[in-house]
């Protein structure tokens, strides 16, 4: 298991397979319970977030779209992990701890 430190943006813990989203064309690949990984804030992420159990973001602070959307939706979110979109691949088993800003990647 590898762990990454980021910023705790929205509290809670979730563990699931991840989907890396680049743009609106990737909305369709998200399944219920997935953890989604995105590069930066974008209002459109609210649509896949409805299905997701949590979110990881490379860039984005407490008042980013993502931060606000996740906190309101009660879903954990960790941001500020450099290159996370390329480090973690689709289907990887990941746990996010939005209380302390940690992401655990299971091999």
């Amino acid at each position, binding site marked *: 298991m590898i762990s990454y430190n980021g910023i705790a943006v929205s509290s809670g813990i979730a563990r699931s397979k991840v989907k890396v989203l680049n743009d609106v064309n990737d909305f369709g690949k998200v399944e219920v319970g997935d953890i989604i990984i995105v590069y930066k804030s974008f209002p459109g992420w609210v649509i896949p977030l409805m299905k997701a159990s949590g979110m990881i973001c490379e860039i984005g602070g407490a*008042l980013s779209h993502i931060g606000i959307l996740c906190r309101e939706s009660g879903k954990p979110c960790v941001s500020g992990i450099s290159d996370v979109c390329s480090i973690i691949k689709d289907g990887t088993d990941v746990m996010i701890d939005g209380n302390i800003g940690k992401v655990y990647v299971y091999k």
Partner: protein
Amino acid sequence: MSINNKQLLIEFSKAIAVPLYNTDAIKWPIRSSHVISVVNDIYAVEYLNQLRELVCNYNPQVWKQAIPSSLILWRMIHHIINGLEKANLSKQEIAEDCLLMVDIIRYIDNNDELYSHNHLITSTSEIEYLSCKYYRICENEYKIQLISLATLLWAYAESLYFQGREICCEYHGPYRFNGEIVVIRDFANFMPIDLWENGNYDTKIRSIRIVTFHKENVNLTIDAFNNVNITGENFVDFCTGGLLFINNKIASKEEIIVAMEEFSQKLECQLGLVNLMSSDELYRKYAYIFWYRKKSLADFLGQEWTPPSKVFDILSNVKIEPSAKSNYRTAEGIQYLERKYDYSIFI
């Protein structure tokens, strides 16, 4: 007046500093300050002239017709101050202008205080009515969908008006009643026909109000820029129930799903439209949105709301360099911003 002008201006600078410190360096589709910093002197001087005209020529009882919510001013205030600085006004003049804006905000909010941790605009009797009159949506599945609808509409507001989402949504509270926290989210202006021509905006929904009730364990604040901050316990888990109003009428659980489907489609459509825009088109749109954010004031004064042509001349001749740099991410960030926007020493 409960506090003097100096104290008011200190409170004012603190209220601005916190949300500015927390703001994101990268915003979608582009950070507004990158565009507006080249024309904010024109904007600020025009805005202040309009505010002075309002205050000098009209009775305070009608100010709310011109500025329906204090958010309209709050969310622009740092741009206005920066613009006045750029226009080379003296610090004393800017301090006076800040006091003018503070007075208008306090009058609109019916408050002597400048709240920076909540936004209280609904009377206690109305909160009591909302709490007691209606059967709440209490099933967990629908509560989650109700909150999801709110986040969806919030995102839709940003897709229509970018950082000018106050045109479309206003969150207020937290109100405390009968051992509960009440949060109200009001949404309107879903058809921005003055700004967008080609989107899918037709809807029978004119307004949506989402009311949620929470156990007091939730620590929720709403800052001066209407950003919601939730810390501690889970916002959804501690939601005890909710209400949905569509076009001012209480709506059923089933209508949550219908509204979600409609606005999901509209959001996707709008995002597609914005993503196709060139940088130049985005800059022009930003200028229109900036001026649109004070349209109600211009309309009230019988003036043209659109940007003057020189704004577009400047935008077409200036090279705008979007930067991902975070401005204030230092340990002293908030103190720096408080000092930057503190004009109390100039009065």
